[in-house]
């Protein structure tokens, strides 16, 4: 028998530390440059920009949250508690809006809502020839676009909450004499509050960190302002100050979310519970529900995608498809593929550490690696840009810089997927293999890997899709002439060349749709396993 020193975790810890350090370094750099900035910069920003940006961001997030809540909860209620023709199909259709990047949705709505545009014409038929509707470049426009883009988050969480709801609670309420409506507001809704809050937090975070739609709609929020400081004024210091402010707000917001989640855990009182059985509907109800669902679906997905298809066909018919189109596709796919692979490779030691060796050191590494979460795209880009221009200026303008930014930004996505996969795997399996004489590598190859393969693959796909849609970091860091699909959409749409922007947008939507269904399957999976 050979004797070896029992220091197995150390290389893992070292690798994880280096990775976490590399990931957090850019953010630290931004923080330092914001803190050491001239107080005059801060004063100027505080008097000119910050109040307006705060107000815009908050009011938009709040109004989007309210609309999301109403849409998400009512649709989830309809689709979990009622059974009607097509209700299972609607279950799938209604989350499709998640497949449209916010900037693509924004650009279709700049067309739909424009002066003398299709929606205004339609409205004039109802309200008279002089009637006007709101401009896309307004608070109302931004609210509309962001809420139809994000309501599926609330819907998904509300739906799984309603599905796992112990119907006995409602029956107990009814037995005490409460009306169905009363029961809904006093029992059902309060009991799914944790899920609703989780959905809302997700939607608000999405709004606060969105760049593409805000820039398309010229609606001034933090992310857009940071971008403008960097590109319009070439003032990275001011951008860093705004970033620090935004990141701090996000951080406090996330802490609040965690605090809320810990406080408000509701438990089903018994292990076994009765699930709700969907009710059959009358024809009138069916008609009503189908109407509501059709309107929401058309607004959030149907009409925009119909437009994209039409424009794409126009562009193809006119032979206007950009000559370098295949090149853009290749750029996008290779960049996203490399990033997803890198994120997975870097994520394995971190995720493994998080699940198997819980010490303060590993906790620190994981938290470090997750900082990408509080970094909206432009901030991640700024962070990497500032760091690279100080330390390795010769790298500036190469694809490498873009890759680093992607990695910082998207590692958390990969990490989350891998962590939850590894968590489902009991360490006993690996220990059993080792007690049967199997070395670490063989154990990983024959036991761990076959069992986590599926979960890791879906983490890879999620990162791939997010990279494919990425706009702000790409816009700020790409080498000259290196265009991706997202960049082409942005450039053509900014010139209001709707037909030219459509083919890449349609391609992105088409690739994203199966991924959205994968996401839905993952949301449903734990439910099935428990049943």
């Amino acid at each position, binding site marked *: 028998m050979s004797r070896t020193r029992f220091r197995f975790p150390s290389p893992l810890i070292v690798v994880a530390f280096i990775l976490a350090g590399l990931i957090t370094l850019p953010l630290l750099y931004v923080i330092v440059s914001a803190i050491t900035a001239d107080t005059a910069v801060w004063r100027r920003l505080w008097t000119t920009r910050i109040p307006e940006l705060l107000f815009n961001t908050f009011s938009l997030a709040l109004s989007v949250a309210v609309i999301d809540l109403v849409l998400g909860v009512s649709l989830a209620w309809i689709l979990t508690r009622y059974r009607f023709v097509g209700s299972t199909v609607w279950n799938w259709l209604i989350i499709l809006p998640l497949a449209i990047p916010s900037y693509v949705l924004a650009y279709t709505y700049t067309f739909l809502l424009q002066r003398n545009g299709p929606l205004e014409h339609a409205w004039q038929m109802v309200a008279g020839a002089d009637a006007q509707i709101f401009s896309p470049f307004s608070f109302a426009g931004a609210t509309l676009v962001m809420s139809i883009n994000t309501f599926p988050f609330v819907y998904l969480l509300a739906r799984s909450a309603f599905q796992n709801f112990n119907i006995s609670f409602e029956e107990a309420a009814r037995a005490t004499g409460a009306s169905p409506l009363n029961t809904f507001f006093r029992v059902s809704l309060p009991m799914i509050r944790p899920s609703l809050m989780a959905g809302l937090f997700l939607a608000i975070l999405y709004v606060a960190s969105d760049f593409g739609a805000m820039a398309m709609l010229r609606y001034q929020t933090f992310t857009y302002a940071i971008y403008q400081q960097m590109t319009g004024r070439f003032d990275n210091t001011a951008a860093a100050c705004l970033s620090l402010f935004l990141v701090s707000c996000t951080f406090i917001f996330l802490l609040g979310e965690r605090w809320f989640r810990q406080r408000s855990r509701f438990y089903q009182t018994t292990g076994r519970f009765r699930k709700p059985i969907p009710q059959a509907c009358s024809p009138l109800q069916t008609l009503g529900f189908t109407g509501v669902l059709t309107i929401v679906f058309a607004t959030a997905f149907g009409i925009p995608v119909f437009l994209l298809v039409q424009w794409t066909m126009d562009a193809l018919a006119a032979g206007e498809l950009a000559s370098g189109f295949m090149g853009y596709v290749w750029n996008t796919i290779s960049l996203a593929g490399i990033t997803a692979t890198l994120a997975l490779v870097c994520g394995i030691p971190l995720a493994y550490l998080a699940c198997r060796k819980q010490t303060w050191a590993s906790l620190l590494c994981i938290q470090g690696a997750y900082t990408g979460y509080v970094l909206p795209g432009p901030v991640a880009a700024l962070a990497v840009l500032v760091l690279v221009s100080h330390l390795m200026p010769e790298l500036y303008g190469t694809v490498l810089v873009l890759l680093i930014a992607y990695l910082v930004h998207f590692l958390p996505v990969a990490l989350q997927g891998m962590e939850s996969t590894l968590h489902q795997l009991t360490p006993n399996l690996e*220990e059993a293999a080792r007690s049967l004489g199997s070395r670490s590598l063989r154990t990983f190859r024959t036991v761990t890997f076959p069992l986590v393969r599926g979960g890791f693959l879906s983490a890879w796909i999620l990162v791939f899709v997010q990279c494919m849609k990425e706009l702000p970091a790409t816009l700020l860091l790409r080498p000259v002439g290196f265009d991706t699909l997202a960049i082409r959409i942005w450039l053509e749409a900014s010139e209001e060349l709707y037909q030219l922007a459509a083919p890449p947008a349609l391609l992105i939507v088409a690739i994203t749709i199966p991924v959205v269904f994968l996401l839905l399957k993952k949301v449903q999976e734990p439910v099935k396993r428990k049943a």
Partner: protein
Amino acid sequence: MTDATPHDNPIVLELQHVTCSYESGQPAIHNISFTARKGDIISLLGPSGCGKTTTLRAIAGFESVVEGTVLLNGTPVADGNHHVPPEQRRVGMVFQEYALFPHLRVTDNVGFGLNQLSAHDRRRRVDDMLSLTGLSEYGHRYPHELSGGQQQRVALARALAPQPVLLLLDEPFSNLDPDMTYKMRGELHDLLKKTQTTAVLVTHDHEEAFTMADQVAVLHQGRLEQFASPETTYHLPASRFVAEFVGQADFIPGEIHHHVVVTEIGDLPLPQGYQGSNQVDVMIRPDDLEIRGSGSGSARIETRQFRGSENLYGLRLESGRLVHCSESSTQFYALNAQVELKVKATHTVMFEQSRNS
């Protein structure tokens, strides 16, 4: 005290003053020493958090030893400086949740540790193990297609297939229905004896430890309280904790007078060589007492639990203390009846009086 193991069998496992810290979230253990000879079944018994699983994992190599030495077949495999990784120890382990590989069929699970053998030998060995455990018809199934008892047999077959030096079992019956547990205990005991397997079994159930083991190690708060045969553990517990953990035990105060222990239920013989204070607490097991003559007497029947094979009576003494007494299944006394108690124990177990009793 048992007939199972002649004491000239070679020592397979030896723990010398083993200490593990609680770095990894497992309870710590301090200064644990015991040995297992070839063919012995050792049971690690104790309440949850006492360190019995940590001890098992230290033997397997999943926990590192801070101080002391673990020896397998006389070779040190772990001490403060050296650590042979689990895969090189040839120690089989059956996990509490069995940890069957969900993506492998039963045959592949059982054959997992046999990759050094040729395909032909491996298949033969797997077949042997499956027929030994009565699973020959289930080889092609996946773990989730088996019942709890079958899964446990697969886990056992898998652990035994590479012919380990030692087999470790972590609460192997905790996931089974009670009636299944009873059956599997007997099966496992016979199988281990038939294959002359040295085994260490973790349990929190003293009945399980007594029926399965040749030697019982009682652990409490990370320390070994007693290492002895089941009979000794029950009749001559080394500490109050052991006395109470391995069965019903009442304590009544006694005083030493002229080489006898005087208590309110009678005089008991003083153990030889006792040198302590004169004030002691005497341990009374239900089978140490018998009820004599109902109608008159100083003890009052307060409770009765009918347990099928016996009646367990709770008796209130004059002093207000409660003691328990087991009587045969058909022996019936009415509640509140006054009865006389007689001590029938031939030996006395006593501890110096603690302050709180």
